[in-house]
């Protein structure tokens, strides 16, 4: 006959296998194929539960980010994917239980341009949710990055080093969370019910010129028909760029640009459309410009009011 104490203990754990199967639904509990196979039909339920937990955490992670945390990239076939930036990684790290450890000392590497240097830093990472581990991941930043503009000396050194560490943290997080390249549909689905929109994300490579990415109108319809000029450096057919306004607010005329211009820096890789049309012997079609027309200066009457009538004077009945 069992003692009362033993009976109590038996009540505490009425079905140990049921508790095990519940625990196995957690992705952070290791399980082997053999263990799953031994559970027969229940194995499917366990796998589905683990997948659902991961899917929910992934969605929660996307939901916790802002459109400003993502940069969109478009491939040549039109597919758009989103890349989570370092600042966004800070927001999702806790959800996945990602740890960055074994962080080394930042290494300085000199660049080729004057004043150019890089800081590289490496470290390991692990995710408590998936139990994945990554080793010797590197992060790095350059002294020529935008955020370093206007800085020099020790201030510049510290900024580049700090940014390199932030990049390491971001790289580990992106790798372990699987958020390096996310389809925009998934992003939009994660933000359903919030005011966040994919359209508010920053646009990166594949979305046209820098000015176009920052909102200038893409005007491919203005592209003239006929032969495109060839790049003098590589011989590739140039791409048409419609007239527009640069991010500095300066209007520019339509021009042609080599798609591989980054491969041969220093060479002349652009041709003005007007020059090209003239060269072809056809009447150059003046490309319409999107530059805003200069606002005409207000007249003296508009500022000071017409004689005997002050500016902004209201007629009776126009109050309020």
């Amino acid at each position, binding site marked *: 006959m069992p003692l009362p104490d033993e009976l109590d203990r038996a009540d505490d754990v009425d079905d140990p296998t049921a508790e095990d199967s519940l625990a196995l639904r957690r992705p952070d509990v290791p399980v082997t194929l053999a263990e799953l196979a031994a559970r027969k039909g229940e194995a499917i339920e366990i796998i589905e539960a683990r997948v659902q937990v991961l899917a*929910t955490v992934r969605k929660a992670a996307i*939901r916790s980010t802002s459109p400003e945390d993502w940069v969109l990239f478009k491939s040549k076939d039109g597919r758009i994917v989103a890349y989570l930036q370092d600042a966004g990684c800070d927001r999702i790290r806790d959800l*996945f*239980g*990602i*740890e*960055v*450890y074994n962080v080394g000392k930042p290494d300085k590497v000199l660049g080729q341009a004057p004043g150019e240097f890089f800081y590289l830093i490496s470290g390991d990472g692990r*995710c408590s*949710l998936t139990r994945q581990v990554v080793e010797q991941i590197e992060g790095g930043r350059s002294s020529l990055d935008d955020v370093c503009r206007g800085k020099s000396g020790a201030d510049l050194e510290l900024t580049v080093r700090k940014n390199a560490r932030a990049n390491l943290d971001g790289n580990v997080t992106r790798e372990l969370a699987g958020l390096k390249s996310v389809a925009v549909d998934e992003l939009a689905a994660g933000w359903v019910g919030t005011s966040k929109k994919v359209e508010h994300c920053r646009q990166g490579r594949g979305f046209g010129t820098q000015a176009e990415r920052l909102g200038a109108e893409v005007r491919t319809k203005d592209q003239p028909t006929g032969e495109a000029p060839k790049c003098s450096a590589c011989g590739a057919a140039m791409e048409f760029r419609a007239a527009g306004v640069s991010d500095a607010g300066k209007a520019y005329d339509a021009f042609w640009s080599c798609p591989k211009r980054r491969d041969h820096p220093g060479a002349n890789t652009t041709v003005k459309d007007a020059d090209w049309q003239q060269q072809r012997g056809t009447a150059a079609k003046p490309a319409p410009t999107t530059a805003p027309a200069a606002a005409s200066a207000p007249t003296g009457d508009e500022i000071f009011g017409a004689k005997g009538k002050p500016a902004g004077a209201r007629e009776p009945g126009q109050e309020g």
Partner: protein
Amino acid sequence: MDTHTTTPADLAAAITTAWGAHLARGARQASPHPYVYASAWRPCVRRMVLEMTQPDALPVWPPDVLARFRRGDDRERDLLADLARIGRDATPPFSVIGQQQRFELRDHKSRVAITGKVDAQLKLDHDRAAVPIEVKAWSPFLVDRIERFEDLFDNPWTRPGAYQLLTYLFGAAVPFGFLLLDRSGLPLVVPVELHEHFDKLEDFLARAEQALDHQAAGTLPAFLENDAAECQRCPFYGSTCNPPIGGAGVRVLTDPELEALLTRREALDAAATEFDRIDKDIKGRLRGIESAVAGPFLIEGRWGKQSKVDLPAALKAQYTRTDPKGRFTLTVTRLS
């Protein structure tokens, strides 16, 4: 400079640039020091040691921050001048003495552990010792959240200021002092009593002593653990100090009964919201009606006693205690 070809916008930008350069010229580079500044309580002792031993590794303050420091100094001077005038006609009268007096606190080994400069002291009458007063011109967003001295400990940016004043009280051996907070209306005078915060003072002294020990031994304390947010706020993070960072991760609950409850809760959510709205509307319309019928419904109401305690604000404040974990808000969102 050819002012004829320069636009007003260019001139404005040039003035701003020159202003920033002027402030940057006046900025002082911190030098290593063998003690902890009174305003430098940190949750991380490693940071305290680095601030003592490698202050030159800190990034330079941008002109905008230097301008805020300058504004703070100006406001402190103005507020103390006003306070001195106000004291003559106040009841009880007081005088402002000992401005910017150096302060030192020694540790158990008689080393100078914490130093600072007391903004001023209030001399209330001839019999009592002067009490320290610390002036702060913080961001209005921070000051708006402060009503009592305890509120300073809730925010990482105001916390060091609270520890600073506690060390001044302890150093001057006085039981109370004041924090004078600049704000857009009347300045806020916050009283602080030392005996209520002895634990915090001991914590600061212990940290300062540890920092001094490490400095003497030429070592660094262990990294701060489980506080990634604090690490990422630290100016040494990424440049001089590269600690491991990470979060605990979400808790995964696999109880099928809980999942069933959540599913049922979701199904009832819209109906419950509608019920609450209609119930509130009906009760508002029928308040005071003790007996009525409406179509097939019998309506019965009755008055009951209700007690209210109207306490004076001061008494209410005296007995109000805020539990940082007293309220718990739960939101449930279906994601998949």
